[in-house]
């Protein structure tokens, strides 16, 4: 028997009051021809306790990344979210509300989101932030669309954007799908031998609508050339930067080196990797892009007695008013996860952010040193520094190494050929975060050594 229907058993009284005698009469407007002729072929209802048994069995069969040494990241990171973040964000008044269309009874969420906008603005050093996109990839894709709307008129390369080479499929494919509407042509921006944007060939992008780069790049390399890029592409081309959010505790904010739009995966602030969702995309920009940006924005204002108040604003950009001329189709977004992110940021504070970034930086360096000490393993890009992640060339197939280490209880990273077209089978992407320990690194290094001696060397001899 289902237990969340308060009017079970009162159907008759309610029907009678309406002058009806059966539930079927309520559905008599559905034409005979399209009615189901058999009931739903689904199992019987379960009680909460039975659901918990199944949930425990099924989810218990999964392997949580933090239950063993883990080096898989690539845009979604093992992290620790302080307990109070979830406790506060899942208070029923936040959890069970919807879009604050009635600001008079939604000041709490509106203020929390306005505070979130402020913290994001400070983090990336740009004046405007929205309240979230679906994820980093849709944020990047919508940023490029926004830039086309802003710049196409004056662009000398109309409907053209440039993105750096070697974007993983989970970024590039989303960008391609979202580019259908404007029929944007996506061209490739080349790197130099260090995995950094080749400033000479970047001149080709001058006069296009937007250039999209990532910091660090998808291999984990910190790109030291980016600060010069805006000068090269010019005032009338948007510099869109996809940034690793926690890195901004140690890396310069993109708004301070020319970025016009900054997007990021917000997940490390606020929520675990949660199998890839719900997470949230950060989207921030200069005022120039404000009226063409996607998503919801909160503004401060006053009530009829002059009291401070908050409200959604600039909704004339949005689908419910502008319909097919809207800047985006986004409606429901990732508000609650952004709220979690905001609470996490507030709890860290500036010094906590810096510490978190230094923990990530340290873990990356320690892991890299351990792995590079193994004979036969080399960095893909040897001259740059890395944050959070780095890519090595193995003396054999990365997938083979992953399988071997998996059996030893180590999740060793990602075979880039699985997510990047053209990537070599030997490229292994390794992520270390604030959660990585020396013991984890030892397990990874030991496992890789053992794989090399037992598998690669055996085949070689």
């Amino acid at each position, binding site marked *: 028997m289902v237990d969340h229907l308060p009017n079970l058993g009162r159907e008759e009284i309610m029907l009678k009051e309406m002058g009806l005698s059966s539930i079927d009469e309520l559905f008599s407007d559905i034409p005979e021809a399209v009615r189901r002729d058999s009931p739903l072929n689904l199992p019987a209802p379960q009680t909460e306790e039975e659901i918990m048994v199944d949930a425990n069995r099924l989810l218990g069969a999964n392997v949580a990344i933090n*239950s063993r040494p883990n080096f898989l990241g690539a845009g979604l990171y093992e992290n620790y979210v302080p307990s109070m973040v979830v406790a506060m964000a899942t208070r029923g008044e936040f959890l069970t*509300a919807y879009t604050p269309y009635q600001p008079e009874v939604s000041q709490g969420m509106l203020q929390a989101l306005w505070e979130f906008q402020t913290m994001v603005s400070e983090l990336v050093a740009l004046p405007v932030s929205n309240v979230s996109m679906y994820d980093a990839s*849709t944020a990047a894709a919508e940023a490029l669309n926004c830039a086309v709307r802003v710049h196409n008129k004056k662009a000398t390369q109309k409907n053209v954007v440039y993105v750096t080479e070697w974007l993983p499929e989970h970024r590039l494919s989303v960008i391609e799908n979202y580019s259908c509407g404007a029929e944007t042509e996506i061209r490739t921006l080349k790197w130099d031998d260090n995995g950094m944007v080749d400033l000479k060939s970047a001149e080709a992008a001058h006069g296009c609508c937007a250039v999209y780069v990532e910091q660090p790049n998808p291999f984990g390399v910190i790109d030291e050339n980016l600060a010069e890029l805006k000068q090269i592409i010019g005032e009338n081309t948007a510099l869109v930067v996809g940034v690793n959010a926690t890195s901004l505790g140690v890396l310069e904010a993109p708004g301070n080196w020319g970025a016009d739009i900054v997007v990021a995966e917000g997940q490390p602030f606020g929520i675990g990797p949660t199998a890839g969702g719900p997470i949230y995309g950060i989207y921030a920009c200069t005022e120039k892009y404000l009226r063409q940006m996607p998503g919801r924005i909160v503004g401060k204002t006053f*009530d009829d007695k002059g009291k401070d108040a908050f409200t959604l604003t600039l909704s004339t950009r949005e689908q*419910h008013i502008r319909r097919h001329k809207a800047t985006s*189709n986004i409606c429901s977004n990732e508000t609650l996860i952004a709220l979690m992110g905001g609470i996490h940021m507030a709890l860290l504070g500036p010094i906590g952010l810096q510490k978190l970034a*230094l923990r990530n930086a340290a873990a990356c360096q320690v892991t890299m040193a351990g792995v590079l000490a193994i004979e036969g393993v080399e960095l893909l890009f040897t001259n740059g520094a890395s944050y959070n992640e780095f890519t090595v060339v193995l003396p054999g197939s990365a997938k083979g190494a992953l399988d071997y280490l998996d059996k030893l209880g180590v999740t060793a990273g990602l075979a880039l050929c699985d997510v990047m077209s053209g990537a070599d089978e030997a490229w292994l992407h390794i992520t270390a975060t604030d959660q990585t320990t020396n013991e984890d690194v030892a397990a990874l290094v030991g496992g890789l050594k053992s794989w090399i001696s037992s598998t690669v060397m055996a085949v070689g001899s």
Partner: protein
Amino acid sequence: MSDLFAFDGAPEAGYAQPSPLLSDEEAIAGIPESIRRKSLPRWPRASEPELVRHYTWLSRRNFGIDTGFYPLGSCTMKHNPRVNEKIVQMAGMNDLHPLAPASHLQGLMAIFYEMQEMLAHCAGMDSVTLQPVAGAQGEFAAIRCIQEYHRSNGEGSRDKVIVPDSAHGTNPASAAMCGYQIIEIPSNENGRLDLGALRAVVGDDTAAMMVTNPSTLGIFEPEIAEATEIVHNAGGQMYYDGANFNAILGKTSPGLMGFDAVHYNLHKTFSQPHGGGGPGSGPIGVKSHLAQFLPKPLVVREEDEHGLDGWTYSWEDPVNSIGKVQQWHGNSGAVVRSWAFYRRYGRDLEKMSEHAVLNANYLRHRILNPSEELASKISAMPIDGAPARVVKHEFTLSMSPVKDATGVSGKDVAKRLLDYGYMAPTLYFPMIVPECLMVEPTETESKEVLDKFAEDFLTILTEDPELVKTAPHTTDVGRVDEVWAARNLVLRHSLGE
């Protein structure tokens, strides 16, 4: 007022962290000097006890379903079962990586598979992907599949998508994002699909038509089968906006109505909490001819005696997939919550729809048929947004007669309802109903709540118009000046600058 940026404690006031693997000096030495951050963001400096007060204070200034009745039409604000929250906090959910080997994700994939099958069955579709993370993204993904389908048939020249004028704004916006031209057709005088208007625009340039049924007026389209036939005969595809799916489970299905593709809103029908604006989840289902274009990957399974409950699950890419619309596999957490919700009902999802429809019709009846005593005090009554013998899970009221008689607008009544402790109904949507209030009670409200709401709603119509026009009076803030907000654009804290 509690101001987050007024917290100005010790530099290290916040969350204490374990020691890093290297000293700070060593770690920072690994970051190129030219690109090191020079000044930190001016985030607050607060301790946990201070922040718990701040966010608790904020939460008390916010209205959710837990606070009270939330009849926000088209949004299906039903109760959110708490066990669902407990389940997604389990390590076997919260700490999963989507790119981990499939052997690490078997339990999650079993749930995905069950949800793909269940959603396909309920909607009469052949194939389902759980990747889109909101209704709008589902629309976008499905229209992209339809676009690729036409292209693969050499009919890429079909460049128009038809939407009724009662459609939600995401429908035309999503189709436009695929590059389609939008043809909006008027509804007939009863707010129903106008087949004459449809015939007039349909043709060999029609790529698809997008329809919500029950419509955004809460009414089942009597001529839906004829509409799908007209579009199909012209070579177009039929897209079903599943925002109102809560009304029809077990009674009919988009498949039976002739649709080729649908999206589901798990945050409506399947109780994923709305979270103040999201996250949602917008899976799409398609008939077999569109399945090869779905976003990748889907979950498939094979019998395996060593597998989980006798099965091994794996990812499979549809052969002509449009690729990805979300970065990973969708809002998995929302899918798992919705799975727990579905398990609570099982085949009684039909009962859920029955009660959603029962509650809507009952509330409509109570509002449109006031007691004699109340009726004698009301100078003008709202009227049905569209005539209907029965409605489905929601109904619309036009407040025009009230506005004409007393000057009190739909917005005024909505704001006055806040004083009575309710969330306001959806306001001024669909656009075809003048002074529209759209009311959706959902199946999880009791008769007592519905009775009381109807009485309070009608009482407002007896009140001094001035009192209603200046409402709300008892909320945390009075009527908010939205015009000032849009003119002045104060989008962040000044931090004293």
